[in-house]
C-alpha cells in the first residue's frame, strides 16, 4: 500500500468567537449584557472568544500535540481544521489550499468512536474510504486496515459487541482509510482506561511509522503529549465567559515546545518528567515539585 502524502498545515491569525446566546439565563444576565454593551459602544453584540491570534505551522509528517485547560479552544481548533467550523478571522491552510469545509485530505478521529451501530466493524471502516474507491479494492483496503489495528477477527461484529478500546481502534482505522494528508485526533484516547490508553498510544506510533502522515493531536494528558509528539503547543483560555473586550484578548498560543529525543521515547525519561512538571504548572496544576525550575513558563 502506498504511503499517504503528508501535508503541511499553516494557521495564520485565526480567531473564533461565538455570539453569546440571547435567550440564556434570566434577567440578571440580560442586565449585565446591556451594561457591557454600553462599555463597548452600544452596538457590538456580546461574544465569547474561544481562540485568538493563533499562528502555527506544522511540517508534513510531524506529530503536534495541542494541550491546554478545558474550554481553551483545543477542540475548536481541530474542528476548524477539519472544516466542521469556520473561523471568525484568519485562514487555515492544508497543503496550499484554504480549508473551506470537510474535505478528503483530512480525517478526524473523535473522542468518542462514533461508529454507526447498524454497520459491522468492517462496514464502519469502509465508510472512511474515499468516494470512488473501486469496489474490488474496497474489501482489500478494509482488510489491510483492520489488520493494521489488529481487528481482523472482529470484522463482522457490530460496535455494540466490541470493547471501548476496540471501538476506538475501529475509529482510527476508519480515519486512516481516507489516506489523510492530515490526521486530526480530538482526545482520541481520553475515554479509555489507563492501560488501554498506553496501548493505543503505541498503536498510533506504530501506524504513524508505517504510514507517516501529519498528525494534530488534541489531548488533556500532558504525559501523552510529551510521549507522542514532536512538538507540544500549549493553549490558554482567552476569555473566561466574562466577555472581556476584544482589545484585552491575548494570543491563544502560550507556548510551543520542542520535545527532545526521538520516538519511541523512554516513558521514564527524566527530561520528559521535568518538562511534564513544567507544562502542568503552566496549566495551573500544583505539582509539589521541589527541584530546579518550578517557575511557570514565560509567555511568548
Amino acid at each position, binding site marked *: 500500500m502506498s504511503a499517504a502524502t503528508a501535508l503541511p498545515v499553516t494557521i495564520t491569525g485565526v480567531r473564533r468567537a461565538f455570539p453569546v446566546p440571547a435567550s440564556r439565563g434570566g434577567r440578571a444576565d440580560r442586565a449585565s449584557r446591556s451594561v457591557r454593551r454600553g462599555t463597548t459602544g452600544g452596538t457590538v453584540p456580546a461574544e465569547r472568544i474561544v481562540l485568538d491570534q493563533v499562528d502555527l505551522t506544522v511540517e508534513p509528517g510531524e506529530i503536534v500535540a495541542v494541550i491546554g485547560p478545558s474550554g481553551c479552544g483545543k477542540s475548536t481548533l481541530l474542528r476548524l481544521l477539519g472544516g466542521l467550523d469556520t473561523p471568525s478571522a484568519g485562514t487555515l491552510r492544508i497543503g496550499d489550499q484554504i480549508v473551506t469545509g*470537510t474535505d478528503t485530505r483530512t*480525517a478526524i478521529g473523535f473522542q468518542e468512536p*462514533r461508529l*454507526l451501530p*447498524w454497520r459491522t466493524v468492517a462496514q464502519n471502516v469502509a465508510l472512511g474510504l474515499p468516494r470512488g474507491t473501486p*469496489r474490488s479494492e474496497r474489501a482489500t483496503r478494509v482488510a489491510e486496515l483492520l489488520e493494521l489495528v489488529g481487528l481482523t477477527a472482529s470484522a*463482522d*461484529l457490530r460496535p455494540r459487541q466490541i470493547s471501548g478500546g476496540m471501538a476506538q481502534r475501529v475509529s482510527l482505522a476508519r480515519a486512516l482509510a481516507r489516506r489523510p494528508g492530515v490526521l486530526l485526533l480530538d482526545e482520541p484516547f481520553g475515554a479509555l482506561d489507563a492501560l488501554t490508553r498506553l496501548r493505543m498510544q503505541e498503536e498510533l506510533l506504530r501506524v504513524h511509522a508505517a504510514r507517516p502522515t501529519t498528525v494534530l493531536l488534541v489531548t488533556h494528558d500532558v504525559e501523552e503529549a510529551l510521549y507522542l509528539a514532536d512538538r507540544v503547543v500549549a493553549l490558554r483560555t482567552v476569555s473566561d465567559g466574562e466577555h472581556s473586550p476584544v482589545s484585552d484578548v491575548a494570543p491563544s498560543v502560550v507556548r510551543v515546545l520542542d520535545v527532545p529525543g526521538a520516538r519511541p521515547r523512554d516513558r521514564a525519561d527524566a527530561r520528559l518528567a521535568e518538562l511534564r512538571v513544567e507544562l502542568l504548572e503552566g496549566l495551573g496544576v500544583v505539582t509539589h515539585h521541589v527541584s530546579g525550575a518550578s517557575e511557570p513558563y514565560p509567555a511568548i
Partner: protein
Amino acid sequence: MTTVSDQQTAASTRSQRAATTASTPRRSLLDRRGAAVVGGLLLPALLLLGWQLVTTTGLVLAYKLPTPASVWAAAVDLASNGDLYLYTAISTQRVLLGFAIGSALGLVVGAVVGLSRLGDVLLSTTLGAIRAVPSLAWVPLLILWLKIGEESKITLIAIGAFFPVYTTVSAALRHVDPHLVEAGRVYGLRGVSLLTGVQLPAVLPSVVSGLRLALAQSWLFLVAAELIASSMGLGFLLVDSGNNGRVDRMILAIVMLALMGKLTDALIGLLERRVLRRWT
C-alpha cells in the same frame, strides 16, 4: 452503499449469531416460542370457556349474548355463501391500500419536517391541527368529495395511517445523534447520501414502530369508514347485523376484526424483529 462484501459479511454475522444462540445453555420455560404462543392463547381460551358457561347456564340471555356455538354457526353460514370471505377480503384490501398510501406519505412528510427547519415551521402546526380531527368527522366530507366508493374509504384509512408514521419519523429524525451525523459529514456524506447512510438507518426502529401503530390505526379507521357508507366489509357486517338484530353476526364481525388486526400486526412484528436484529 451495499456492496457484495457487505452482504457477505452481514450473512456471516447472521450465521455466527445463529451459532451463538444455539449454544446458549439453558433458557427459562417462558422464553421458548411455543410456550409464548400457548401462554398468549390461555386467556382467550378462558374467556371462551366463561362465555360458554354464562350463555348455557342462562346467566346472560341469548338475545344479548348468543352462545359460541351459534356464532360459529353464523360464521359457517356466511362462509358457505362466500360473504364472510368477501367481506374480510375487501376490508383487508382497504386497510392495506390505505396503510400503504398513508404510511408512504407519512414517511416523506415526516422526513421533510424532521430534517428541515423550514418544513417544520411551515407544516407542523397545520398537521398537528389536522391530526386533532376525529376520524368520524372526515366521513361526511369525504363522501361528499369522493362519493361512496373505495376512494373515500381508502382516503380515510390513509389519513389514519399517515399520522403515526409522520409523528414518529419526524420526531426521531430530529433527535438523531448529532455526533453520528457529524461523523457522516466528516466522511463525505451529504444530502441524500447522508439521509440514506446515517439518518434513515438511525431512525429505522422508530419507523417500524410507527408503521405498527399506523397499521392498528388503519383498522380503526376502516370501521369508521365502513360503519357509515358501505355495502361490503366487516364494518358493514357489524352495522348491518346490528340493524337486523343478528347479535351472533355482530360478535362474529368483532372476532374477525380482532383476528385480522392481530394477524397483520404479527406480520409487521416479524418485520420489526428482522430490522432490529440487523440494527443491533
